[in-house]
C-alpha cells in the first residue's frame, strides 16, 4: 500500500461530520428550508448554540437588544449568517485536534477564521454570494486536523521541520509524506459528502491553477495570503505563502477594492474571534 492509499483508508475511518453541521450544509444547497425545524435542531446542540449566540450578541452586529434564541438570531441576522456561524461552531467543537508543542489549537482556528473572514470580504468586489466563500475558508485546512488525528507524531515532526527550514507547512508536509493537507482535506470532504465546489477549494487552495477556473480555490488561495499578511493567527514566525500571479490577475482587485477587503476582513475576524472563547 502506498503512503497515499494508506492515508485514504485512514481518512475513511475518521468520525463522521457532526450531524448539525451536515444538516446545515444540506440546507445550503436546498431551496426550501424549514427554519423552525433547523433552529430547533441547532438549539439541541448546546455547545454550538451557545457559541452562535455569543457571536450574534458581539458588538460587530451592533444589535439594539440581546438575541436570546437561535430562532431570533435567524430573524435578526438572516438565515445565511446563522448557518455560517453554526457551521463554524460545529467544526470547532466537533473536530479532534492534536496535541504537541508545535501545534497550537487556538492559532489554527484563528487562522481558519481569518481566512473565512477574508474570503467572505472578497464576495462583494467579486460579486459572488458570500456564504460559500465563508464556508470554503472555514473548511480549507480541515485536512490538517485530519492529519493531526491520523499521524500525530509525524505531523509534529513536520511542524518542527517547517520551523527549522523556515519553509511553509505545505512544503514540509509534501517533503515528508509525498502529499499535503489539501489532498487529505479533499479526501475527507468527499467522505463527508461536501458540495463539489467546496471539495475543489480544499483540494487546490495552494495550487489554484489546477482547480475549476473561476472557482473557490483561487479565492481561498488569496484569502489565505490576506490572513497571513494581517497576522490574524498571531504566529510569530508566520509567512505569506507564494501567490499564483495568474489567479491574482484573474481576481482583478483594484487598490480601493483591496483596501475595502482588508478593512472588512479585520472587522469580520474580530467578531468571529468570539467563537473561540
Amino acid at each position, binding site marked *: 500500500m502506498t503512503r497515499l492509499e494508506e492515508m485514504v483508508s485512514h481518512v475513511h475511518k475518521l468520525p463522521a461530520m457532526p450531524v448539525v453541521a451536515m444538516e446545515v450544509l444540506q440546507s445550503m444547497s436546498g431551496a426550501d428550508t424549514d427554519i423552525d425545524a433547523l433552529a430547533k435542531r441547532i438549539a439541541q446542540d448546546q455547545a454550538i448554540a451557545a457559541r452562535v449566540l455569543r457571536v450574534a450578541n458581539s458588538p460587530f452586529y451592533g444589535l439594539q437588544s440581546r438575541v436570546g434564541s437561535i430562532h431570533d438570531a435567524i430573524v435578526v441576522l438572516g438565515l445565511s449568517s446563522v448557518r455560517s456561524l453554526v457551521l463554524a461552531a460545529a467544526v470547532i467543537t466537533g473536530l479532534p485536534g492534536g496535541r504537541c508543542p508545535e501545534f497550537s489549537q487556538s492559532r489554527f482556528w484563528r487562522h481558519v477564521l481569518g481566512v473565512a473572514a477574508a474570503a467572505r470580504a472578497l464576495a462583494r468586489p467579486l460579486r459572488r454570494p458570500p456564504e460559500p466563500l465563508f464556508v470554503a475558508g472555514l473548511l480549507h485546512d480541515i485536512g490538517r486536523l485530519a492529519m493531526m488525528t491520523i499521524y500525530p507524531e509525524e505531523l509534529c515532526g513536520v511542524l518542527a521541520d517547517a520551523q527549522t527550514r523556515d519553509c511553509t507547512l505545505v512544503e514540509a508536509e509534501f517533503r515528508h509524506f509525498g502529499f499535503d493537507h489539501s489532498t487529505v482535506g479533499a479526501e475527507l470532504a468527499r467522505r463527508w459528502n461536501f458540495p463539489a465546489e467546496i471539495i475543489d477549494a480544499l483540494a487546490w487552495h495552494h495550487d489554484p491553477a489546477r482547480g475549476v477556473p473561476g472557482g473557490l480555490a483561487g479565492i481561498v488561495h488569496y484569502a489565505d495570503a490576506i490572513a*497571513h499578511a*494581517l497576522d490574524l493567527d498571531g504566529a510569530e514566525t508566520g509567512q*505569506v505563502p507564494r*501567490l499564483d500571479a495568474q489567479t*491574482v490577475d484573474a481576481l482583478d*482587485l483594484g*487598490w480601493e477594492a*483591496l483596501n475595502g477587503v*482588508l478593512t472588512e476582513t479585520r472587522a469580520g475576524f474580530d467578531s468571529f474571534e468570539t467563537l473561540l472563547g
Partner: protein
Amino acid sequence: MDDTLTLPLAEVLPGTVLAAPVLDHSGAVLLPAGLSLTEVQLDGLRRRDVATLLVVRPEDAEARARKQERIRARVMYLFRHTADEAGSQALLHAVLAFRQETGQ
C-alpha cells in the same frame, strides 16, 4: 488625544510626518503614511494643487515613526520569501498601507 492634525499645505514644513497616505485621482498611493516629507516632495504636492494634509502632531512624530517602522519591518518579514514576486505586489503594498494606517 488625537495625535493627528490637518494642516494647509502652505504650513507644512519639511520633516513633517504624514498621518495618512496621499493618493492621486485614481486612488494610487503617491506618498505613504509615516513618510517624513522633504522639500522636493512638498514641491510636488504644491504642483498637484493639494490643499491640506493629514499629518502627525510634531510631538508624536518620533514615536509614530518608530511604530510605522516596526509595522513595515513586520510586514516585510511576513513577505520575506515572496516580496519580489509578481503575484504578491498588490497585496504587499495594500497590507503595508492598511496596517500603518490602522496601527495594527
